[in-house]
C-alpha cells in the first residue's frame, strides 16, 4: 500500500513526459510537453481516488462478457493478396515494404 501511495504522490514533470513520449515513439515539441505536463497532472489527480476503492480482494475485470477461449475449425481461409496487403504502403519495392535504415541510430 505504501508503494501505491508513493506512486500517487508522484507529480508529472517535464522530464517524465519527455520519457513517456520516448516510450510511445512520438516526437513532441517543447510546447506540447509543457502543455501535457500540466494537463496530465490534472487528469491523474482526478483518478487517484481509484486506488482507495480498489482493494486487494477485488478481482480485476478485463472484459465485459465472460467468454472462454474461442476456437475455430482449422480450415484455410483466403487472406489478403500480396498486392492488397501492400496497397497502403507508404513505400514499397519488389513486392516488399521499404523501411528506412534500422542500424546506425543516432
Amino acid at each position: 500500500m505504501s508503494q501505491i501511495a508513493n506512486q500517487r504522490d508522484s507529480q508529472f514533470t517535464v522530464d517524465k513526459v519527455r520519457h513517456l513520449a520516448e516510450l510511445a515513439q512520438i516526437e513532441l515539441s517543447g510546447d506540447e510537453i509543457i502543455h501535457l505536463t500540466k494537463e496530465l497532472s490534472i487528469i491523474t489527480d482526478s483518478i487517484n481516488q481509484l486506488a482507495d476503492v480498489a482493494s486487494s480482494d477485488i478481482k480485476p475485470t478485463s472484459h465485459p462478457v465472460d467468454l472462454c477461449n474461442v476456437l475455430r475449425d482449422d480450415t484455410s481461409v483466403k487472406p489478403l493478396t500480396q498486392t492488397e496487403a501492400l496497397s497502403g504502403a507508404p513505400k514499397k519495392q519488389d513486392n516488399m515494404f521499404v523501411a528506412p535504415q534500422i542500424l546506425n541510430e543516432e
Partner: protein
Amino acid sequence: MSELYKLSAWEIANKLRLREISSLEITQAFLDRINQTDDKLGAFLLVDDKIAIETAKKIDSSRLKGDTLPKMAGVPIAIKDLICTKGLVTTAASKILQNWVPPYDATLVENIKDNGLIILGKTNLDEFAMGSSTERSAYKLCLNPWDLNTVPGGSSGGSAASVAAWQTPFSVGTDTGGSIRQPASLTGIVGAKPTYGGISRYGIIAMASSLDQAGPMARCVLDAAILHDILSSYDMQDSTSLNYDFGSMEQAAIEGTNQGLKGLKVGIIKQLTGEGFSKGILAAFNKVVALLVNNGAEIVEVDCPNFQYSIGAYQILMASEASSNLARYDGMRYGKRFLPDKQTVTAESMMKTTRDIGFGFEVKRRIILGTYALSAGSYEAYYGAAQKVRTLIKGDFTRAYKQVDCLISPTVPTVAFKIGEQLDDPMAMYMNDLATIPANFGGMPAMSIPNGLAANNLPSGLQIIAPQFKDYNMYFLASALEKLINFNFNPSGLTQLSKAVNL
C-alpha cells in the same frame, strides 16, 4: 413528393417494395440534400455519388426483373469514417490515415452490402473517436443541426448530424464511452449500443477494444432496430463476437409500441439523476418518469455507488487500450509516413516524426497517459485499480437488475454546448460521458431516445440500459416510450442551414 429525404428508412423500404419510388430517385434525393447542406454542416468526410448511384441502379434493375431482394434493399445509409470500407477512403478523421483505402470491408459493412443498402459516404468524427464534440476531427468542424453554434456531440458527431439534418435516413456510429448515445442525445435522434459482442468489431479502427461497439443511429426506434438487426451477426473474425440469438430488434420495437409499459419494472439510478445534471435535463427526465408511472410501469430507485468512479477508471482503461492499439501507426506498412528533417533518416526517427505530425493533440495526450498507466511502477496503481473499479461497477449493475428489468437515466448531463466551449478543459469534456460509461464497462446494451427539449430549445436524451443480452427488452421499452413521449422532431438550425446554403 418534394421532400423525399424526410422519409424514415422503413417508409422508404415500403415505397421501394411497392415501386412508388426507385432506389435511384431516393439516393439522388439524399445526395442532393447532402450537396445542398454539407458545405456548412460538415457531417461528411467523403461522399461517393458514383458508387451510390451505380449500386442504386443495380438494385432497381434487379427489382424490375422480379428478383427477391432483402427487405431494406435500395435504402441509403451513411457510415462513420472509423469503419473500413473496401475501396472507399477511410481516415478515422486523422491525418495519419489521410487517403488510406482499406483493402477489405468491416464485417458490418459486408452485412450492409449483403442487405442491398446504398452507402452514401463516410461521416465525420473526433480523430480516432477520441472526443465528445467532433471538434477533434483533423479535417473539419461538424455543426449541430438544431443550433449551428453548438456541437453535435461525438465522437459519432457526423453520423448524428447527418441523420438529424435529413442527409440520410440512418447511419452507423461507434460507442466506447458514449460516442453513439451522447451525440444522439445532443441532436434529438435515436442511437443504440448493443451488448458488447453483438456487432462484430472486425474492420472497425480500434480505440479501446474491451469497450468499443458499433451501433445504429436513426430518427425513430423502429429504424434503429431494423438497422441493428442488419449490423448484428456472429463473426469468426472477432474473437469477442457472441454466438447468441438476440431475437429480432424490429419485432421488439413493434411489440413495444403495441403492448405498452404495463408490468415493467424500471429502475432510476440514484447517482445519475442529481448532482452534475442541468435543471432542464432533469425536468425532461422527470416527465418521462411520470409517463412511466401513469402508464402502469413500476419505478424503483436503485443505488449504484461505484458509478462515481467510472470517469476516472475510464480515463485509465481507455487511454491504456488506445495507446496499445495506436502503436500500429508507425509509418511502415500503411498510412502516412513523415520524414524528419535530418541527414540520416532511421526507422525510429521516421516513426517518431510520423506520429508527431500524423496525430492530433488529443490523441497524443491519450497515448501518453496510457503509456504512463501501463508503465512499470504505475500499472498496479492505475491500470490494475481501474480494472477493479470495473468489477465494482459491474457488481452495481448485477444488484440493480435483481430488482428491475431496465434502468433509465438522462443520457448526457447537459444539452449541446457551444463550439469551442470545452476544448481547453479536458475534464469538462470527459464529464459528457458521466452517464454513458457504466454501460460500456458492463458490456450492457444501452440507447438514447429523444425526450423533449431542455435549455435553449435544444434536445434532451433519455438513456435506457438493459442487462447483458437483453437488447430486445431495451428496444421494447424504447419503442413504448417513444410513442408516449411523441417528440416533435424539428431542428431549428435547419432553417438557418437552408438560408445559408441558398445565399
